[in-house]
């Protein structure tokens, strides 16, 4: 490989690697790849400083398809490797790519800790509510009753909500996006990239082979407008094809309800505004589920705190010992010494 002469402006294509993409035809991962490549181009990120790090799973094949630096590691451990890379070189722009099994089963512990530590990087969780690569077993996000090769009579484990988990882990940026929404996905990813600290993005991804349509209740174009709510900071929490539905705090409670503007005397004034710095609200939004509620997508929570690497003792960018012979001779001679 020789250094290709790059045009001034890189296009999404310039961020794609020369490898054949090998997901099943129709897999939601293609759409996410497209959205990420577009994001990288929109941001014009320097390829040499960008690193994609993943665990194992269909989703985790992602780094092979991006022409930046990349590391396809082991199941569930991408957050640990990303943390180490950041410890070594805080200037790297790191994207962690993970599936729901990868991030929340085997890697649940690491996901918890990377979020609470808050290094500046983007963490993408491709949630398809199933194990793809190992052929369709239920995952920690699968609904109770999911029939799979390992749960022929339906799973009994209660699912974890990725966004609620992230909020509980003290993540300072939690967002949601949908694989096929090519307008909204790059926007959300750009917000994640701008955020200084760990940004957690759950992306609903359709596994066409093992869990086709699991999110169709809110992703189908026909009724998406009524079943999704795109939250935006400072804007009213209104949705619906006719923009006539809103979220209201039930007076005297900490409960949210859906109201129809114009019905029962509800007006726009009754509808809450989205405040992405409000942790309580984020938790309420993250918990909303069909059929009674729309699924909240967009930036549910963003309240920056000092990123992890700001506290590193030595911020040398790339390798390089920062100590001298004299310093080290001093270290070896600290305390009691004697001469023979």
């Amino acid at each position, binding site marked *: *490989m*020789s*250094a290709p002469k790059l045009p001034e402006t890189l296009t999404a294509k310039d961020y794609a690697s020369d*490898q054949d993409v090998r997901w099943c035809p129709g897999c939601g991962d293609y759409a996410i790849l497209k959205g990420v490549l577009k994001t990288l181009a929109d941001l014009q990120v*320097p*390829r*040499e*400083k960008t*690193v994609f*790090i993943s665990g194992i799973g269909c989703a985790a094949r992602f*780094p*092979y398809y991006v*022409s*930046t*630096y*990349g*590391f*396809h*590691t*082991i199941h569930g*451990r991408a*957050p*640990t*490797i*990303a*943390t*180490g*890379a*950041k*410890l*070594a*070189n805080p200037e*790297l722009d790191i994207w962690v790519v993970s599936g729901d099994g990868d991030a929340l089963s085997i890697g649940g*512990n*690491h996901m*918890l*800790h990377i979020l609470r530590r808050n290094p500046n990087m983007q963490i993408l969780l491709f949630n398809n509510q199933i194990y793809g690569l190992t052929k369709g077993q239920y995952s920690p996000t699968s609904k109770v009753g999911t029939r799979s090769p390992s749960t022929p009579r339906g799973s009994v484990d209660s699912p974890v909500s990725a966004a609620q988990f992230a909020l509980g882990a003290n993540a300072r940026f939690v967002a949601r996006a949908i694989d096929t929404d090519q307008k909204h996905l790059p926007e959300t990813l750009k917000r994640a990239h701008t955020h200084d600290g760990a940004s957690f993005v759950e992306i609903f991804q359709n596994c066409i082979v093992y869990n086709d349509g699991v999110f169709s209740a809110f992703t189908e174009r026909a009724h998406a407008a009524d079943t999704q709510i795109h939250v935006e900071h400072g804007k009213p929490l209104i949705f619906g094809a006719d923009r006539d539905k809103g979220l209201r705090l039930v007076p005297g409670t900490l409960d949210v309800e859906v109201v129809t503007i114009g019905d029962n005397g509800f007006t726009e004034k009754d509808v809450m505004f989205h405040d992405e710095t409000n942790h309580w609200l984020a938790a309420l939004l993250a918990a909303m589920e069909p059929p009674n509620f729309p699924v909240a997508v967009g930036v549910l929570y963003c309240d920056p705190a000092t990123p992890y690497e700001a506290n*590193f*003792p*030595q911020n*040398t*960018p*790339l*390798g*390089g*010992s920062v*100590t001298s*012979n004299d*310093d*080290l*001779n001093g*270290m*070896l*001679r600290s*305390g*009691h*010494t*004697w*001469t*023979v």
Partner: protein
Amino acid sequence: MNVAPAVPRPQAPREELESVTVRFAGDSGDGMQLTGSQFTLATALAGNDLATFPDFPAEIRAPAGTTYGVSAFQVNFGAREIRTSGDAPDVLVAMNPAALKVNLDDMCTGGLIFVDTGAFTKRNLQKATFDDNPLEDSSLAKFRIMPIDMSAQTLGAVKPYGLSNKEALRCKNMWALGLVYWLYDRDIRPSADWLRQKFAARPELADANIAAMKAGHAFGETAEMPGEISAYTVPPAKIEPGEYRAVTGTEALAWGLVVGAHLADLKLVFCSYPITPASAVLHTLANLRQHGVVTFQAEDEIAAVGAAIGASFAGSIGVTSSSGPGIALKGEAIGLAIATELPLVVINSQRAGPSTGMPTKTEQSDLYQAVYGRNGDSPMSVMAARSPGDCFEVAVEAVRLSTKHMTPVMLLSDGYIANAAEPWRIPDVTGLRRFDRMFHKEIEGFHPFIRHPETLARPWAPPGVPGLEHRIGGLERDYDSGDVSYDPANHQRMTDVRAAKVELIGRDIPPQNVELGSDSGRLAIVGWGSTFGSINRAVENLIDAGLEVAHIHLRHIWPLPPNLHTLLDSYDKVLVPEMNSGQLRTVLRAEYLVPAHGLNKVTGQPFRISEIEEAARRLLED
């Protein structure tokens, strides 16, 4: 008993000894580790060679007075070269009945035992499971017992400082230390200075402790000391000139990593999760941040090794450290580092037993784990440190081999080396050879798995350089392009080249030498790791006795030094003493088909010199 007046009695001339082993033993709250390390320092300053063996209970605060709460610190020192912490103590200081009970069996016949009679209460005797007071029957007849009410002596000595009774009694260990200082003619000043520093915020505690120490010393000098106990002197040892300090294996290891990283001009990123006895390396390095060291306490061992690998990928030298159970968790990630051919240093401070085993006791039973303990054909370089000071050199070498050959290196230490201390000649960092800078720069023809023709190492190209963007991962990759490949012939080729690469390290290391004895003959005793001292002294004794024995000690366990096979073939017999059930022996048998014999011990205690001598003699008689 009254406080002894400091009137010197006419002293018999001090008897000169070549070497002595002293053990301080008491309740874990009695400060025996501090006492021992102060005695170590004073002894080093007096010019003796020495080795120490701290032995502490597994419980953080075991109930006072119980046998499982006994903490001990042994120092072997001499006018000659000291290689072990000593077989059987010549002197025991027992601060309570439990300490006497636990340590009695180790004492040599005729050994001198100081006991604090003040602690020999009915309750303490019961707790130590003595039926009768051993000081009052003949059960201790084969030892020289010196019963002293150290508690009362101490209380008397520190009275002027207005401490509470509890605080005053805490000074007992310094009283005992003072007494032993007298016994071996040690200068108490360094310990007094240390106490002043330690208790800078509470000068009355410093004064009280110093007074107790002086009182113990004075007790020895005065008529209070029975006539049959005389004082000794141990002349300075012949030691190579230079600047010295005492080091534990933990300190030397930590410093070796820092210096190794410096010689490679790399930032050291050290990632670990607490586990006994490995944690101390993390603690030591956490205090060296001013030298550019980054330390990371991870959420578990898997995260620790993952972070170390991530650091190496990003252009630092990633180091991770643990003990056996934690190394077990790191296995999969080490495989990733092997597959992606990244540098990584993995330190295993071995401890006893499968599973959680005996955390505070020593063993060398992770050799199989180090050499074989991963999935797939995953060869890995394995090195072992032999002594506290040796940890420094081994750590530097581990960084060198790992970065030069782009491969993980496992460094085996153990609980004994980690905690033991010895005098160490401090190197001058300026004089150490720097390692070649290894980052790949050439864009033309780059792919992540092109190989260096001599080392077979792949290029190290950390993110940051335009034009070198590349992807690596655990999936098998094509030899010629570095792209993912499941091609059967390619997997064969890649497996072979990974093995060949690690084998090449065998040519980068010094050929195996013979420590003692000649390079052929009747018996070679082959050891590795912390058994060095016991084997070396045993072999010296055997040679002195006219037997044809040699000592070979391995630093490199994988790959084995290429000349080792021929070397072993030139002896009639091979004996492999190990603190395990025969792990190196199996490797040597498997590799060379040599009929190696084993001498194996897994009691959690180091080998005695005599055990090795006996085994060798038995083998020579056959």
